[in-house]
């Protein structure tokens, strides 16, 4: 392999990691909700879209107020977006899923699809259907290697996305593994009735799970807004589907699985687009998913499901 080919390979790797980090953040929301109440939260993609829209509004507002320092603006946007998106996540659970606890399995799924349709059209009506272009927030990058007619570079924004995702995922693993909330969450995942009998407020834990999922989705929304610079009310659907694929690929219900799945989907997309064709990149992701599920029916890191009679 000559230097130029290696460079191209590394460039795709960087792009894939960035994309994978975003998918991973959204996938965690799917996987946690599935782990605790065994339902596919189809509206999660829309929650991420809401995060992105709040980010665009806040960025524009800050620009008109004259806040130009990038770190300050970024921090404010992240906080504001997390706050509002978490409120939406909480409300969605309260309205559409909590009344359906203990209902037949498909009822919450249909309710989630209804919620997804509602949120998409709500945002379209209130914010307009045209794409929202945002002036670049973070410019420039680091050139890692230059010569032989190609450059290998990583932009600041890519670096920021990868680092922030790493920090969040580490923090999150600690949160689930070490804190009382994490313990309650894992207990509810294993046996909700028993957890309730032992004095854990199950409803509150489930609500907080949705809030946590929405928090990560909001961060993903902010990052995507900065990365692509343009969003519309439809982005939630595709991203949601990819993230859901990632969660299943890694083994739904498993946190490290969601991160791994997200990275894999991001990498597959980047390499497939780079080396073969952009048009069929989703076919590639789904084919890999199907192939993995044929050999490991519960995903890469999922626990095998023991069926009891």
């Amino acid at each position, binding site marked *: 392999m000559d230097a130029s080919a290696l460079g191209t390979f590394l460039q795709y790797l960087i792009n894939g990691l960035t994309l994978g980090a975003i998918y991973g953040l959204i996938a965690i929301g799917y996987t946690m909700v599935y782990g605790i109440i065994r339902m596919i939260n189809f509206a999660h993609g829309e929650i991420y879209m809401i995060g992105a829209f709040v980010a665009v509004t806040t960025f*524009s507002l800050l620009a008109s107020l004259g806040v130009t320092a990038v770190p300050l603006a970024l921090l404010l946007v992240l906080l504001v977006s997390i706050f509002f998106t978490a409120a939406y996540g909480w409300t969605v659970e309260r309205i559409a899923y909590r009344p359906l606890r203990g*209902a037949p399995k*498909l009822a919450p799924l249909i309710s989630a699809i209804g919620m997804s349709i509602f949120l*998409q*059209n709500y945002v379209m009506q*209130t914010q307009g259907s045209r794409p929202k272009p945002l002036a670049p927030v973070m410019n420039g990058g680091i050139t890692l290697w230059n010569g032989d007619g190609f450059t290998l570079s990583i932009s600041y924004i890519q670096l920021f996305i990868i680092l922030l995702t790493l920090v969040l995922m580490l923090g999150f693993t600690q949160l689930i593994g070490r804190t009382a909330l994490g313990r309650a969450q894992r207990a509810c995942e294993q046996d909700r009735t028993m957890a309730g009998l032992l004095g854990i407020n199950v409803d509150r834990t489930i609500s907080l799970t949705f809030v946590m999922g929405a928090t990560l989705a909001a961060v993903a929304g902010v990052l995507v807004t900065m990365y692509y610079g343009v969003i519309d009310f439809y982005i939630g659907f595709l991203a949601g589907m990819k993230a859901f694929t990632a969660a299943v690929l890694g083994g739904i219900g498993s946190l490290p699985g969601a991160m791994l799945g997200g990275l894999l989907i991001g990498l597959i997309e980047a390499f497939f687009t780079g080396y073969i064709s952009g048009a069929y990149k989703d076919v590639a992701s789904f*084919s890999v998913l199907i192939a993995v599920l044929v050999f490991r029916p519960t995903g890469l890191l999922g626990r095998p499901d023991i069926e009891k009679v």
Partner: protein
Amino acid sequence: MATVALPTRLKDAAIAAGLALVLAIPFIGLFTVSTDQGLVVNSRWSWVAWAVGLVFAGRLLLGAGRDALAARANRKNNEHIDLTNHHKNNRILRGIAIGFVVFIVPVFFLIYGGASGIQIILALVICLLIGFFLDILGGFVLPALKKVDRSSVGTRLTRAFMVAALLFAVTLPFMPYSDRYIIDLGTTVLIYILLGLGLNVTVGLAGLLDLGFVAFYAIGAYSFALLSKFFGLDFWVCLPLSGLIAAGFGVLLSLPILRLRGDYLAIVTLGFGEITRIVILNWQGLTGGPNGVSGIPRPGLFGLSFERRPPEGMVSFHEVTGIGFSGEHRLMFLYLIVLALVCLAAWVINRLRALPVGRAWEALREDEIACRSLGINPTASKVSAYAIGGMMGGFAGCFFAARQGFVSPESFGFIESALILAIVVLGGMGSQVGVVIAALFIVMLPELGREFADYRMIVFGLAMITIMVWRPGGLLSTRVPTVKLDQKGA
């Protein structure tokens, strides 16, 4: 349980209003507009005030209504302690009543359509009366023939509803109030009923979640489009072929997923739907990509064409019958074709339910391990469920292509799969009457609100949530067993 005090309700409503305020600020209160200087933020605080006020009032009313209902139920419970049977009958009656109410929706819609309302209501009432009359008659005649009529009130009412609905459907295109628009809409409803019946086999009977059912619809449509484009085959040859091709894909899809369960199935089927759409979109040479395939021939009746100028080798319908040419004849003909398809599908599926394969589906839905230990082959059952369901989807697709004369990948997105699944679940899984009612609802609701075109999808999403919360098992949630043990011994 005592009625909750007003201050509690007020506090509750205030919390809801506070939440509404938070939710409304970033979307209703603020919005961005694209200008030359980039995005500019505008505000509309009065809307926020309205939203918050509405939520406050709505929450208060909802709470009050709930209190009133609880108080009534409380009184009732004290009065009749043990009337379980009575309650069961009530539930069935209520289910039918709901079905009836939803069935009324098209009437309102027809009035909107400009037809004379009294005529329509009369037609509907007569249909229902005839249905009930036939049912009562059956109640007298059947016992005489078969000694005992074992069917319960619920099934008798369901049957009456079916008869009434069928009568209404068959006579619809010949009624004086039927215009182009109504027949066209009726055709759309029937296509969705056909799709719902197909998906009902996989999801409702066999219990296999399928989020990519639209793939079979697309495969059926493109089978016809391409077979007619490249080989010049006509609709009646392609209809069975499309069904078979779609069934073949159903078998293909079912193979990798035999070991998967529940939600893993969901994503794989969703992936299958997306793969189909993407391949159609990008395989320019075969499918024409985003431009689709046009010029699909219209179906004829035994060599009679419904066009003004029939294609070569065909005679036109209006010349043979001597009835003056009218574009509506073609629409009526299409409507009757799909109606016949729906009836055939419903009948075949009903018969299949009584066969070993159909019973195996339902047994599989209830308990896979028990099935296996009783010697039922789960592989064969799953494969056949996907094949039969896919075949119905293929028929619907073939008909869709014939009706539109044009197919493009746009018609086969994920939202279609979601709507078809919603029809099955909203109707009550496994219930064919439920599919009919839910299909009417899903197709009619967005049409009804055409004056509020902008907001109709918002209302649609909300309605889906509301129905699920209100009746989690679907509108007709009584699961009717195919085989019932007679208590006195068969």
